[in-house]
């Protein structure tokens, strides 16, 4: 606009200064151009039609978005920009389009596919539109819809149910027996014991009681059944910043989350109570069983971040402190402790301290069942083949630390997510351990 008005003014002033009618005619030509172009407006009456305000996908899944754009008035250029959130990888089509809007009504359909590379809840701005006047003399109008498309990307659990090899099916450890004071009685037989006040009569084992006839003790025997949710698994997920080793999408923390989700679902499907502690940040889900707990854990894992992002580095909590904070939930039970972490020189002593705390709260000084899933994050870091040997060397340095953790009383399962599946690692790893015993 400035350029055109300037040209017109210069010509007009030249005409006025020299009393030259030709200059005035040329100035009028420029003014007429401005007037004619401004008679037409830029694209207006724009409508965006989109599909669905709520979307849900698994990590790594491809999602297709489609938009319909309509514009009824004006002439110019329409630019439609969907502004994909971070961690969304464009696979097909384009999220930014430019269209010509002529004199007639305009209609276009945009479709593109994106791969959701990281778990989380994302907001997709729908159809941010720029309406540019064809001459550039009119104002460029920029607008967007009020509504946003909410996309929930859930972490894909590393399923442990699909274990088909009969030799290893039963090798994934279950929590040891432990008396749980509350919970529904199941039909799983546990033992025969003497009748105590309050036991239901229907639990009296008449056959066993009859065999007692003639002895001094005439107290009847009752059948004791397992209590639902009796077996408890405590998962400790290391949320330290260094768990981010690897790329922003593929790192030890992301795999640790998938493993936590997979393991929790495995035990929940077997009627165990599962609790999760995101240690280093005083954040925990208390043990419960059932589908609701499964949903609760999954929902929490969608948005969980490393410590620095949530609590700041000054509020980090060691594993021992995390165990200490849940000690009330450890009374009278022998849970199965699973620590999902990446062993390194920075956290080896912390791990050992945590394992000692687990021993401390084990009822009757029994040896607690502790498993450390060591996610080999260094193996995820190399950018190419040339960097792999150095990653292996760095990983080898952790071997003495792994031995120290084992010595403290935990069973360590090293897992390289890039090469081996979790179920295979767990099944084979635990099997070896049992053979070793």
């Amino acid at each position, binding site marked *: 606009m400035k350029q055109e008005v300037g040209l017109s003014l210069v010509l007009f002033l030249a005409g006025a200064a020299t009393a030259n009618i030709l200059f005035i005619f040329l100035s009028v030509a420029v003014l007429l151009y401005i007037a004619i172009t401004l008679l037409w407006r830029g694209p207006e009456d724009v409508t965006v039609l989109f599909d669905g305000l709520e979307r849900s996908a698994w990590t790594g899944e491809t999602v297709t978005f489609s938009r319909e754009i309509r514009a009824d008035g004006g002439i110019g250029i329409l630019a439609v920009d969907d502004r*994909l959130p971070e961690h969304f990888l464009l696979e097909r089509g384009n999220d930014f*389009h430019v269209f010509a809007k002529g004199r007639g009504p305009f209609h276009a359909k945009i479709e593109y596919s994106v791969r959701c590379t990281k778990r989380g809840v994302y907001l997709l701005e729908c159809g941010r539109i720029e309406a540019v006047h064809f001459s550039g003399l009119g104002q460029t109008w920029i607008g967007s819809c009020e509504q946003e498309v909410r996309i929930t990307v859930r972490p894909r659990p590393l399923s442990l149910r699909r274990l088909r090899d009969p030799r290893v099916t039963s090798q994934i450890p279950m929590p040891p027996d432990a008396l749980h004071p509350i919970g529904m009685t199941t039909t799983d037989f546990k033992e025969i014991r003497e009748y105590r006040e309050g036991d239901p009569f229907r639990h009296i084992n008449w056959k066993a009681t009859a065999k007692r006839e003639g002895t001094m003790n005439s107290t009847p025997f009752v059948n004791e059944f397992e209590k639902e949710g009796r077996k408890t698994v405590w998962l400790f997920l290391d949320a330290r910043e260094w768990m981010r080793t690897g790329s922003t999408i593929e790192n030890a923390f992301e795999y640790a989350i998938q493993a936590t989700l997979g393991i929790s679902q495995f035990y929940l499907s077997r009627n165990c109570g599962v609790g999760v502690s995101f240690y280093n940040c005083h954040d925990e889900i208390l043990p419960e069983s059932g589908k609701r707990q499964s949903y609760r854990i999954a929902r929490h894992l969608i948005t969980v971040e490393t410590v620095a992002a949530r609590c700041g580095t000054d509020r980090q909590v060691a594993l021992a402190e995390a165990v200490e904070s849940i000690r009330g939930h450890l009374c009278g039970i022998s849970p199965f402790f699973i620590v999902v972490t990446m062993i390194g020189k920075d956290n080896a002593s912390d791990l050992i301290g945590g394992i000692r705390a687990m021993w401390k709260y084990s009822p009757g000084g029994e040896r607690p069942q502790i498993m450390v899933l060591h996610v080999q994050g260094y193996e995820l870091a190399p950018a190419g083949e040339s960097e792999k040997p150095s990653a292996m060397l760095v990983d080898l340095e952790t071997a003495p630390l792994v031995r120290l953790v084992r010595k403290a009383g935990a069973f360590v399962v090293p897992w390289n997510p890039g090469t081996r599946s979790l179920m295979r690692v767990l099944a084979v790893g635990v099997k070896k351990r049992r053979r070793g015993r």
Partner: protein
Amino acid sequence: MESTAAPAPVSRDTPVEACIFAVTGVALAVSLALFVSTPLHESLSSWTDSALPGGVYVMYLLAIVAVVLLGIMSRNVLRPVLYLSWALYLPSILAFSRFDLLSSVIDGGLASLGGGSPPILVLAAGLLLVCTTLAQGAVEEHRALRKSYLERGAGQEEVDTAVRSSLKYVALAIAASAALAALVSVVTTALAYFGEGIALPGGYWYILFAVAGGAVIAFVLVAMLRPGPPERPAPEQAQAPVLTAVPVKK
């Protein structure tokens, strides 16, 4: 990780570039032709012929080459060529000035420098130069817009289509404004010719022109000040009826 596609290589839209090159070339040729018919050219010619016969044309050629080189160096060839065209055109148009500052300095004043071409031809050449200037401005603006879109990840083909379509309307507007300006000049000249003899005393015909010019300026101001949509509204303000978002029912 970047979510958008990698930016496409930025290249120029060839048909548009070819058109603007051609128009600028024609404008330069017309300006040069007008200049050659001026007394200034004759003076230059007689001055250079003493040293080298036809040397004035060599001088023009060198000037054009220099301007083109300057344009190449500044990565915009057309702009200096356009300035050269205006420079060559100026003596011709100044010859029609009624208020001559040079008359006291040079014998014959401005007319002795640029006279020699009929006014209709000078006006046509002037309109051509104005059109070229406007077209160059629009093309430069669209080129920047195109580059920005490509860098933001839009497809090259759809950007080119949009830019070409937009420039088509610009060309239409330029042609229409030139035609209207020519019509205004013809009408006012005719009114001046007939009005001088019929109603208005000599020299007052331009009052009519001033009224017409004032009307055009008022029209432009009204068009410019017409209330339009708000500039860059906040997302929460951008809603119906200007931009509506409707979920598709499946």
